[in-house]
């Protein structure tokens, strides 16, 4: 079954291959061929794979999403886009998997900083890409990675040279505009020594069924600082796979904020490799309702001593929604003095909602400080009564408490404009009358 359906994608590949970027690069052709072979053999991940045991992606195999051939972006409603696009930021817009120069805003970027589409980068920065593309993640990891490597049509390349601090955030907007479209993008972010950058990846789409399959590789140089925000607001009918694979050099800092709100079926991977004395913080908030299935898979590899990791994922699940959290922390035999804490907290708002949570600690070193905790609970009836006794009706009381639970994660956003946009999305889910943002 898997092989037959995956082969629909494989069969289509021949007609797509000639339009894919990087034809002139033998190393990329090899990478793509190898990825295609892997994908042909294993297809999309199946429930038999331990890392996918809670998430069934067979619907993606049954449908056939195809790459976009037209590259029109003029029909995007700018009023709608305003809910997502930041003003005080540089932005790169990818429409149906293709860079849109018309919608992107890159004026005033420092000369030393490179932000360009993957297609252009494969021409201008082929050497740098050869040593980075595919280095933070292995095609053998699972079918989506191999699929992305073989299929990516475009994406983004970001290079911040040593000591450069990017003053404004850089937003990457992935927009899906066509029914049954397949948007497969590859993004490479490189921050050299002591560089600093904040990147926001936003995924949105029109109210239709499509597949986003995005892979981002991040290379955080020695003592460099990268903050990556992911705002996943895909359409309610969409399928989303987004993988973020990070390699941190010594003393490097990386913070990830994962807001998973949209999609019918959405899976995110956030995998981080930590070198000596590097810091990483993974934050996540997933809000599921109706029949949404939202899966977040994190892996933190403590490879060297004295690295520090903190992880907090919170989920709110209503109706028949299902939330999956799989968090793995692996402490290598060399990684003495590791300090790691992982926590996953789930709030179930309905009897039919489900949270599957699987934190895993694998510790091979003997002098470490590691902990993890998991909760799955419901709203506290005492708190609801307290609010009711203060004139708040029950529904609003529930919304206030749910919002407060979720807002802890929104509060961590350090970019005001983004904070307000994410807050807006959360308030839509849990409306409260007369709320003043400054009091939240």
């Amino acid at each position, binding site marked *: 079954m898997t092989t037959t359906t995956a082969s629909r994608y494989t069969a289509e590949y021949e007609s797509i291959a000639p339009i894919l970027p990087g034809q002139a690069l033998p190393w990329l052709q090899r990478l793509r061929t190898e990825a295609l072979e892997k994908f042909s053999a294993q297809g999309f991940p199946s429930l038999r794979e331990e890392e996918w045991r809670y998430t069934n992606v067979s619907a993606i195999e049954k449908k056939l999403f195809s790459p976009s051939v037209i590259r029109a972006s003029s029909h995007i409603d700018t009023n709608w886009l305003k809910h997502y696009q930041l003003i005080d930021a540089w932005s790169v817009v990818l429409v149906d998997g293709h860079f849109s120069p018309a919608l992107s805003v890159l004026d005033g970027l420092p000369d030393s900083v490179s932000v360009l589409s993957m297609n252009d980068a494969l021409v201008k920065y082929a050497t740098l890409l050869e040593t980075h593309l595919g280095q933070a993640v292995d095609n053998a990891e699972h079918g989506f990675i191999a699929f992305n490597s073989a299929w990516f049509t475009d994406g983004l390349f970001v290079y911040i040279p040593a000591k450069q601090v990017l003053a404004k955030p850089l937003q990457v907007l992935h927009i899906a505009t066509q029914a049954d479209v397949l948007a497969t993008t590859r993004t490479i972010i490189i921050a050299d020594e002591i560089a600093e950058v904040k990147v926001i990846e936003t995924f949105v789409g029109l109210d239709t069924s499509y597949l986003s399959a995005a892979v981002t590789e991040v290379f955080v140089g020695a003592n460099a600082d990268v903050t990556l925000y992911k705002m996943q607001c895909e359409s309610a009918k969409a399928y989303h796979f987004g993988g973020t694979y990070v390699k941190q050099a010594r003393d490097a800092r990386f913070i990830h904020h994962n807001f998973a709100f949209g999609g019918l079926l959405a899976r995110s991977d956030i995998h981080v490799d930590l070198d000596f004395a590097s810091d990483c913080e993974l934050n996540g908030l997933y809000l599921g309702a109706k029949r949404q299935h939202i899966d977040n898979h994190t892996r933190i590899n403590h490879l060297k001593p004295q690295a520090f990791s903190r992880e907090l994922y919170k989920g709110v699940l209503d109706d028949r929604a299902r939330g999956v959290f799989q968090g793995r922390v692996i402490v290598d035999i060399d990684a003495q003095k590791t300090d790691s804490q992982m926590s996953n907290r789930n709030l179930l708002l309905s009897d039919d909602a489900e949270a599957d949570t699987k934190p895993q600690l694998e510790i091979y070193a003997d002098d470490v400080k590691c902990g993890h905790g998991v909760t799955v609970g419901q709203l506290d009836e005492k708190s609801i009564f*307290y609010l009711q006794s*203060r*004139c*708040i009706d029950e529904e609003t009381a529930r919304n206030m*408490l749910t919002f*407060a639970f979720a807002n802890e994660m929104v509060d961590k956003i350090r970019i005001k404009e983004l904070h307000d946009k994410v807050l807006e999305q959360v308030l839509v889910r849990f409306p*409260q*009358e*007369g709320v003043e943002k400054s*009091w939240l």
Partner: protein
Amino acid sequence: MLSIKNLTVNVNDKQILKGINLEVKAGEIHAIMGPNGSGKSTLSHILSGKAGYIVTGGSVTYQGKDLLEMPPEIRAREGVFLAFQYPVEIPGVSNIYLLKAALNSIRKHHGQPEVDAMDFLTLVKGKVRLLEMDEKFLYRAVNEGFSGGEKKRNEILQMAILEPKLCILDETDSGLDIDALKVVAEGVNSLRSPDRSFVMVTHYQRLLDYIKPDFVHVLAHGQIVRSGGPELALELEEKGYSWLEDNKAA
């Protein structure tokens, strides 16, 4: 204001209140005293509408309306305020937000427009000073990390701002040192008015040194076994509860 007639209440099939009668007129302060387990807290919970209690008989009329028919938030909007024995911590919801939401709910209930933002802040800050609280409290999450005394003060602050008609104080003095008790009592006393009534449920006579009741009732085994003036409280302090309980049992 409040009329409780022959009220019987069960919790988990066990009768806790066994026929309570109480008349509270506007402007009066009633103290309900009794040993632990006498049903004092049940009475205050039943008046504020907490779930889990089954009324098996009798009635509670508040300002001519059937109080037991109303959901908790409607009671609160109609002017019933319960100051909790153990105020609940609400992480992530700031005091000031709750206060404004509560005040506007009351105003909406009475067909009034929302409170003006400046007027609201002036009102709130005035009450904060009255209760000798730090303004920073307003922006902290409701009761989160508050000491016992701060929580009780916060209850009275809410009461002072929402201006209820019927204030139910559930064991307000428990957990308070004498200085905090004085501040809380002063806050309560400042709210005394001819059209506002108080029902104070307390185990300790001490509170009544600072908030003078008009009537004292002794609750034991789910019934009011004795009613009288403030002097009854002094008698209780001298003799303890046992003489009344024994009396009843005999």
